[in-house]
C-alpha cells in the first residue's frame, strides 16, 4: 500500500476491545480451540481481500471488514468502523489501482475459535496518476469470526518499510 494507502489492500492487526470476545462471553465457552481451523480461516482471509482489492471492488472489501474495524496505518489517521473505512478508502481507491498484492503471514495465533491474531508482510503495487510503485511492509492484525460465520478483519496496524517506483 502506498504510503497513504496503507493498504487498502491490506490488513491486519491486533487486538482491541472490539475484536476480542467480551469477558462475560468467555466464561460461557470452555471449548477446545481448533487451532488448525482458525489458522486456516485467518490465512484464507487474504486471498479474498486481495481479489477484492485488485478488482477495485470496494463493496466486497467493505464486506470483509467487521463493523467496528479499526485500521492504524502509517500515513493515515486512525480509520474507525466500516463506514469510516468507506469514507476514506472509497475515495482513495477511485484515484488508485491496486495492480497486485501479496500478503504473507509470519505467525498466526488462534486465540479462540472466533479470533486469530496474525503478523506478516505485504507487498503491494499500485498505480496512481500514471505512476506505479511497489510498497513493502509489515502488518499485525486481528481477524474474527462474526455471528454470521464470516471471518472479518477487526483490526490492523501496518507500515511500509520501503517504497520503490516501478518502471514500465
Amino acid at each position, binding site marked *: 500500500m502506498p504510503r497513504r494507502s496503507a493498504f487498502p489492500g491490506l490488513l491486519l492487526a491486533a487486538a482491541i476491545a472490539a475484536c476480542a470476545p467480551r469477558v462475560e462471553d468467555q466464561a460461557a465457552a470452555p471449548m477446545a480451540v481448533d487451532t488448525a481451523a482458525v489458522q486456516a480461516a485467518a490465512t484464507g482471509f487474504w486471498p479474498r481481500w486481495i481479489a477484492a482489492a485488485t478488482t477495485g471492488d470496494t463493496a466486497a472489501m467493505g464486506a470483509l471488514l467487521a463493523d467496528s474495524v479499526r485500521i492504524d496505518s*502509517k500515513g493515515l489517521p486512525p480509520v474507525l468502523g466500516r463506514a469510516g473505512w468507506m469514507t476514506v478508502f472509497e475515495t482513495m481507491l477511485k484515484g488508485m489501482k491496486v495492480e497486485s498484492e501479496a500478503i504473507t503471514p509470519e505467525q498466526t495465533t488462534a486465540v479462540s475459535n472466533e479470533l486469530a491474531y496474525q*503478523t506478516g508482510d505485504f507487498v503491494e503495487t499500485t498505480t496512481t496518476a500514471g505512476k506505479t510503485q511497489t510498497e513493502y511492509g509489515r502488518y499485525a492484525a486481528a481477524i474474527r469470526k462474526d455471528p454470521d460465520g464470516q471471518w472479518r478483519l477487526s483490526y490492523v496496524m501496518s507500515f511500509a518499510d520501503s517504497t520503490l517506483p516501478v518502471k514500465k
Partner: protein
Amino acid sequence: MRYSSTTALAALLLSAACTPAADTPAATPATVDTAAALQALDALRNQYIALQNAGDAAGLAALHGDSAGVDIFGLPRLRGRPAIQAAFTADFAARKYTLTEIVPLSRNVRTDTEATEIGTYHNMHDVKGTIDHEWGRYIGAFGKGPDGQWKIQYIMAFPDSTKVDK
C-alpha cells in the same frame, strides 16, 4: 529506537506465550480480574518509561517475554529478547530519551493472563544536544507468565510525526 523509538510503547498483540496452547481446552476462568490485570499493565508501562528514560537496555529487554516480537518502523523485525536488547542498546548509544509518554487508548483484558492495548506515544530524544520529538501509535500484547510477571509479548509501532526543536 533509532527511528521510532516507540519502543516506548506499549502495546500488543500476539504471541504464542500469551495465547492458549494449540488444541488445549480454552480453560477460561469463570471471571476475569480485569482490575488486577490493568493495574499490572500500568506498572509495566511505568517501568518501561523509567527504563527507557534511563537508557537501560538490559532492563527494558527484561520486560519482554523470551520470544517476544517487536515491529517498529525504521527497525528490522525483532524476534526474541536478545535481538530486542541489541536494538535498544544501539538506540541508547545514539541518543538519550529525555521524555517518554505512553497513553493507552483502548485496553482489553481477555483472560487473567493475556491482554492487549492500543495507544499513542510521545518520545523526546537528545541527540548530541539537539532535541527531537516523535509522536506515534502502537499496539501491544501482554502475557502473564507462570512466575506471575506480566511481560510484553508483542509490540508494533510507528511515528505519525516528528519535530526537531530549534
